[in-house]
């Protein structure tokens, strides 16, 4: 692989890396035919982020040395971030950035050609790895809203930077409401301040959602994409469905697109009665079975991940992480996997390490799709080469 980024695009690339660094500690680099893909996932598998830079973003783009397969690798996020640590400096001094993969000595070489003939070369060690792919499809989400990133930036402004989760929903009068989400703790002596921001429908370019729908997700992770979108002056779309299904945050322009897929809290996780103040919640597809949930851990929601062993895709190796508890509703909508066998949960034993797919359908290209439906019930095999 060899690609050359010039001019203002170097800073854009740097900003994307900063954005991704908010999510995960490892950066997956994959040169594809349709561009360079940078992906990451967080440790609890509740957030996935991906930027795809089209070939036109680069002055030169070569996915793979002719005759060879493209190398997929993962590197430490903080190593790659260090190259673009100071965006101000990057903007001022860097003229060109050349990224190449040297398979022979396992180094990702990032060379910054700066002013005054200064050249900085970073040799980052990488690990070859499987392709990191989250299974999601925005088109399958029932609800979508889209607004200029600036509007959303202003919307989150009143919230404290330390706030972890926020609830987004449609209130009466088709107003879009953002409210700080606080876990209810009966023994908490000092209550936390609750902040709510209400924006009129007219500020949105697209609003396809009924009054009463709402999702709760991690604000800190969302800010990662929001900051990038604001600086690039792009519109941001939010595709979502019922609580518990991941929400997809997307930006796009002619040279790049970005997707952040964040898990949302399911209805049983949302103990706060405040959610119902938005409007009566959808009595939708799900009938939460409160007894079925193994624990109240706020992090017990996650994203389906699939990795492919090789491009040929002869056998998809469902390698997924697991997280205790959190089974999907027993009466699923048309799309979810049919996982109806529930293990009996004995008190005192650790929760069963069983993964439930939270996604509907697969976006893997037909050539790569696994044979038949895949109930992903495999143990985590991450770390195996």
């Amino acid at each position, binding site marked *: 692989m060899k690609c050359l980024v010039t001019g203002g695009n170097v800073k854009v690339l740097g900003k994307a890396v900063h954005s991704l660094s908010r999510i995960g500690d490892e950066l997956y680099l994959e040169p594809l035919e349709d561009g360079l893909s940078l992906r990451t996932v967080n440790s609890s598998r509740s957030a996935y982020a991906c930027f795809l830079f089209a070939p036109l973003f680069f002055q030169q783009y070569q996915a793979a040395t002719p005759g060879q397969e493209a190398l997929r690798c993962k590197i430490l996020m903080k190593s790659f971030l260090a190259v673009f640590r100071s965006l101000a400096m990057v903007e001022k001094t860097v003229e060109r950035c050349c990224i190449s993969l040297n398979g022979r000595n396992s180094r990702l070489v990032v060379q910054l050609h700066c002013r005054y003939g200064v050249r900085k070369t970073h040799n980052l060690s990488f690990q070859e790895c499987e392709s990191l792919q989250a299974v999601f499809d925005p088109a399958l989400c029932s609800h979508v809203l889209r607004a200029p990133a600036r509007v959303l930036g*202003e*919307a989150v*402004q*009143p919230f*404290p930077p330390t706030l972890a989760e926020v609830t987004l929903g449609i209130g009466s009068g088709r107003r879009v409401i953002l409210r700080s989400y606080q876990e209810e703790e009966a023994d908490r002596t*000092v*209550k*936390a*301040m*609750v*902040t*709510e*921001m*209400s*924006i*009129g429908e*007219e*500020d949105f370019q697209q609003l396809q959602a009924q009054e009463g729908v709402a999702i709760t997700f991690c604000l800190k992770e969302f800010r990662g994409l929001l900051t990038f979108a604001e600086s690039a002056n792009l519109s941001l779309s939010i595709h979502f469905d019922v609580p518990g299904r991941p929400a997809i945050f997307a930006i796009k322009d002619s040279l790049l697109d970005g997707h952040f897929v964040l898990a949302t809290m399911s209805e049983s996780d949302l103990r706060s*009665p*405040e959610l119902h103040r938005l409007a009566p919640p959808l009595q939708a597809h799900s009938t939460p079975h409160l007894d079925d949930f193994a624990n109240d851990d706020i992090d017990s929601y996650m994203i389906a991940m699939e990795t492919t062993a090789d491009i040929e895709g002869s056998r998809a190796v469902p390698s997924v992480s697991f997280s205790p508890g959190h089974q999907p509703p027993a009466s699923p909508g048309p799309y979810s996997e049919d996982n109806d066998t529930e293990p009996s949960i004995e008190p005192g034993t650790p929760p069963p390490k069983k993964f439930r797919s939270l996604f509907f359908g697969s976006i893997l290209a037909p050539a790569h799709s696994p044979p038949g439906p895949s109930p992903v019930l495999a143990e985590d095999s991450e770390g195996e080469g």
Partner: protein
Amino acid sequence: MPHWAPVNLPAAFLLHSITPGVSNMIAKLAKTCTLRISPDKLNFILSDKVANGGVSMWCELEQENFFSEFQMEGVSAENNEIYLELTSENLSRALKTAQNARALKIKLTNKHFPCLTVSIELLSVSNSSRVVTHDIPIRVIPRKLWKDLQEPTVPDADVSIYLPVLKTMKSIVEKMKNISNHLIIEANLNGELNLKIETELVCVTTHFKDLGNPPSASEDASQARNPEQMAEVRIDIRRLLQFLAGQQVNPTKAVCNIMSNKIVHFDLLHEDVSLQYFIPAFS
């Protein structure tokens, strides 16, 4: 067992301009503070608890200078006041959003828990309306504790002097903090004020001159005192710095009153907000 008074105390007021500066200032001074609401005034109170290092603060706003509408009903006709305790940072964050407000409303409400609801309608470029609501949890302070929250009486000062530019004082005290934990503040009736720190290795003094002294309350006291004689108090430097750090804008009036070896009293006026801050001598 928490002390709740019945929170059926309606208090609604509309502000058309309020400087978040006041609440910012207070947020830097203490984690929690008391808000006293009475028919003609709003007070922010910090009483001299051990947790504050004996420091106390009294801040007063005349309601007519800020509110276009002000309604309140206290506990009873004789005690027409409300005392609330809240986290200062919450209020300052809530009011920060109000910097671009078209309208601001503050109400006492009881949504799941008693709170001060700050409701802000934001100015926006387009016609669209944006509304931010902050529910600040509060604790209503029962009447029996009100006596500890009254305006402190200011004893007669040995020396009263106008303060130098607070920003300058702050940058000096910030550097001094690295050398010593205690600072001596001294002044005389000749318009001279000194900030001194002393350690085994070094003594540093900063001299301010020609500051001017406010006219004294009683002629006799000032006649008797030698104008060159310094009145001094030794205080915890961090308390002084906390106070100075909260002063973003130079006040309209700033007076320092020193009661030798007892207490230093800062009396500031920022436009329509009066602030008094007491730092006791370090024992």
